[in-house]
């Protein structure tokens, strides 16, 4: 049986998500997430707050981290290192796209 059509807007990447939502979306443990924040791979809105909240865009990063943890069997520090390399690759690819756009 096909479920009925559901109307749904995509989330605003700057909307706020809770620590619990981030944990559920990523499947990472609280301890893993806390380590990723400690290593700078994830950044809460207010690192000094007693309960962290995040911009929704970090959900995608947290899921990526979870994939890397699972697929490469890395500890959280290893995940944070690989994430930083992935971010560098994305920035370089964006620069290449920008140059190609300008050069035609």
């Amino acid at each position, binding site marked *: 049986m096909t479920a009925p059509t559901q109307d*749904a807007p995509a*989330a605003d990447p700057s909307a706020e998500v809770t620590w619990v939502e981030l944990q559920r979306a990523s499947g990472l443990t609280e301890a893993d997430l806390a380590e990723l924040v400690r290593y700078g791979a994830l950044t809460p809105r207010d690192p000094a707050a007693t309960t962290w909240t995040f911009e929704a865009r970090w959900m995608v990063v947290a899921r990526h981290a979870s994939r890397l943890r699972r697929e490469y*069997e890395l500890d959280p520090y290893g995940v944070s290192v690989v994430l930083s390399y992935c971010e560098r690759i994305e920035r370089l690819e964006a620069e290449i796209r920008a140059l190609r756009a300008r050069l*035609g």
Partner: protein
Amino acid sequence: MKYKDYYAILGVARDASADDVKTAYRRLARKYHPDVSKEQEAEEKFKEMAEAYETLKDPEKRAAYDQLGRHAPGQDFRPPPDWGAHFAQGQAGFDDIDLSDLFAGLAGRHARSGGGGRRADRPLPGSDYEAVVRLSFEQAFHGAEVDLELAALEWDPDGGVRRVPHRVKTRIPRGVTDGEKLRVPGKGGKGAHGGPDGDLYLDIEVAAHPLFRVSGQDLYVDLPLAPWEAVLGTSVQLPTPAGAVTLKVPPGTRAGQQMRLSGRGMARGGGAGHMYAIVRIEVPTVVDDRQRALWRQLADGASFDPRAHLDQEAAR
């Protein structure tokens, strides 16, 4: 259900040790992980080998897989008659699922039963769904409503797994870029026993446009000019995604110059990128005698030397 030879996929013998299986997976992961691999079909290959490793690294799943018997890869097969009773209680059938679903069901069944004790009423979150959304440039520029048909893996009441079609209509905001990932909250699988519904994650792919090149929120378009237009200046009609605009080209415009059309790029949230028209000087390749004479007259009378700086640099 089609058979996959997980041992062959990882390149190990059927009696390989757990360490050998792990080493084989890690070697292949380094080569095919989609985050870094430029190999053709890396994503597909990685998905296959990750599925194989997920089953073979777990002793219980590996034993269950071995009991399926050996078949030719890609061959339609059914588990042996007593396999379901032993490893997949509650699984109603095997025709609408594939091998990875079957072993996902094994893992999920274990989690849902509390890993040993029955905790059937524990709140369980719904699965997250992922889908690729392919947009035209126009859809990305203006935003679009898309209708997605997903075949999601869900639990049935008897504890088995099955693929259920779902339709989700969602609004893609304007200004999305190729490679972007969007989250649609609460539109994944249904949670159980009061658990939250899963989310839907969309991978956005945007087709290239024949005229407009995208860089972040900015757009680039070539503006071809005849030599006399660049020298004397002119007004041109320039196409933009929101309709043509009149662009004033000042006298003395040079090749490669970028003319900015503010706010005419991809809009996103409250702002918008810019559009840049990049000047290209095009010369006529076919001229008649009269035109050639006019060009010769211009050449003979002009003191302009575009290569003056080359002589100066060479003389240093």
